[in-house]
């Protein structure tokens, strides 16, 4: 079921990957590396896109700076999802799951499966 009344949805692919990276505390550059890794190099996030996305997520209170976590370089700020961020991420995953299921069942009707 599509979630209509959520202001932050849908998330772009980049923001989706940034948010799932932030279930753990990570600073700017580590987010870029993590996204590159888990997307199998499919999603590249440029520095301006990362900075803009983090600014917007902070303003929407979906992520928060974790000043309490000690970093080797204290000027590096790790970010993490907020409870609100987790709710939005859940809603987005539901949305993407629904899209995925529609695709799989559409192909199943003509006897095709998506395993290749």
């Amino acid at each position, binding site marked *: 079921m599509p979630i209509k009344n959520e202001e932050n949805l849908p998330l*772009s692919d980049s923001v989706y990957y940034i948010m799932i990276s932030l279930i753990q505390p990570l600073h700017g550059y580590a987010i870029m590396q993590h996204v590159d890794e888990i997307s199998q190099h499919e999603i590249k996030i440029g520095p301006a896109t990362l900075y803009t996305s983090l600014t917007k997520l902070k303003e929407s209170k979906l992520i928060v700076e974790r000043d309490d976590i000690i970093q080797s370089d204290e000027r590096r700020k790790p970010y993490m999802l907020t409870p609100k961020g987790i709710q939005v991420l859940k809603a987005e995953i539901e949305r993407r799951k629904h899209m995925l299921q529609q695709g799989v069942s559409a192909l199943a009707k003509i006897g095709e499966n998506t395993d290749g």
Partner: protein
Amino acid sequence: MDNRQNVKTRKKTVLKLFFAWQDQEEQHWLEQMAAEGWLLNSIFFLLYEFTYGEPGEYIYRIDYKLTPDKDMYEYKEIFAQGGWKHVCSFSGWQYFRIPKEEYSTDIYTDAASRIEVLKRRLALAFIIALPSFIFLFILRPYQITSYGSVLQIFLGLLSIFMLIVLILLGVLIYKLYQHIRKLEKEI
């Protein structure tokens, strides 16, 4: 164009005008200067200072930083880790450079984040245009006959200045709006 060249320190300052909607042209010009060995050092209004080095292939990108500069360290570091050298900044504009062989991804990699920045620049342009607009079209029509001649000349000059500002901001707003529309079609 006005060139002042100092041979000893191998520096030169170039006067050049780019409007706020000409960032592509400005980047291209800086890349051409680098190909001739002139690397950008600093910017002050329309004055670009270059240092002479080895001619090389570089890519320049100009970003507009939306937020107050208290997180400047973090902002620069995100770029630095991707290989982008922060060259200088001028009134919110940030100049970055990377050698062409190290370039892998552009500073913006999705339309959504570009649109976000363009929309905020659009809002800023409206805010800056507002005082000129109020002066020219709401206050000014009532003032023409009610002051002495010296003040009238002053107000006249001020009106011309504000009209120019307003026209330039009008062009900027139109260009930003067009760019946003174009990017929104790509999503």
